[in-house]
């Protein structure tokens, strides 16, 4: 009887309601907090992509459907002579703002003795006389490759959507080189 009286007292009711209120309010705030931590991520089309250059047939360039991957399978290195593929593939900024890009080494596999160098140059234009903005120089000393570090960032403005930046590839094999192959993967980072 006493317990019943105690439970039915106003203070007791208020304390009970206060505690349950605190519990509900805290749990709700926690749920809302977890909701606010979820960000909405939407996919966006790329503004910077690759285009085939004038020398794409010589270098046997193939682009992925979204033009974000370019593969060159026809590059050759001649013994004791450097060979330049001036304009096999281009970088194009089709966006409305300028982007920064850089060349970054990703992986290298294959022969380590028959080559002298493989260079990737980012040109400010697509002609042979276009100045070089950045370069990645892979050099081989006859026993191993020296992998370069990533280039500095280079701004590619959007003032003219048709402006394109060629990636020139220069190769050279050692004197009396034997048949060999090397696979180099580089990335064009965009920010």
């Amino acid at each position, binding site marked *: 009887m006493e317990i019943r009286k105690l439970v039915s007292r*106003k203070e007791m*009711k*208020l304390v009970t*309601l*206060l505690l*349950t*209120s605190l519990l*509900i*309010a805290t*749990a*709700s*705030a926690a*749920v*809302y907090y*977890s*909701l*606010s931590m*979820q*960000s*909405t*991520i*939407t*996919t*966006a089309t*790329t*503004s*910077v*992509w*690759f285009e085939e250059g004038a020398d794409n047939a010589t270098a046997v360039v193939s682009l992925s459907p979204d033009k*974000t*991957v*370019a*593969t*060159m399978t026809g590059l050759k290195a001649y013994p004791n002579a450097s060979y330049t593929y001036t304009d096999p*593939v281009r970088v194009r900024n089709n966006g409305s703002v300028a982007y920064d890009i850089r060349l970054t080494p*990703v992986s290298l596999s294959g022969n380590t003795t028959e080559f002298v160098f493989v260079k*990737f140059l980012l040109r400010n234009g697509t002609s042979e006389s276009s100045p070089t903005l950045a370069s990645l120089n892979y050099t081989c000393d006859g026993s191993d490759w020296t992998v370069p570090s990533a280039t500095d960032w280079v701004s590619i403005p959007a003032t003219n959507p048709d402006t394109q930046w060629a*990636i020139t590839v220069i190769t050279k094999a050692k004197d009396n080189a034997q048949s060999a192959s090397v696979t180099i*993967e*580089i*990335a*064009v*980072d*965009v*920010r």
Partner: protein
Amino acid sequence: MKRQSRLRKVDLEMILPEFFALLSIDVFLLLSLLTCLLEERFPKAIPYIYQIAALIGFGHLLVSREFLSIFGEDMRFWYNFFYLLVALGNIIAINLYLAVEKKMWTLAKAWSGIVTFPIIVISVFFVSNYSYLQGAEFPALIMQVGLVVSTIVMGVSISLFLSPDLLNKLKGRR
């Protein structure tokens, strides 16, 4: 050359539509405590009914979280806003109950000053803030004036509620 990396677009909003549900839950909990404090004037079950209403809101938040990707922004806004309207409707209903049914004019006036008016202004503030962030324009001056008026009304109401003879004293001085 094998890879190109790009950042993806990330949209972050300051206020989520579920904020209105959170606000409504707090309103229901407040009503529950206030009706418990004034239990002689209300049916005994009312504080518990408001607790259940707040619990429904909590469940509503949980469901909203699970189906966040399915429900669109508009749909989320409208069902949360509807829940807020229900909570505000209850505040006004209690105000009317005290004034019309119970004929407790002083308490009804105090309720409108301490509870109804400030909570409605706060709700208007957040709804307008949400609509502003969503791109709809709302004059900022209205919000600021509303908050100042709300504060003044609330202050006066609290003073009168705590010492009802204050008004008579002020009249007596004149």
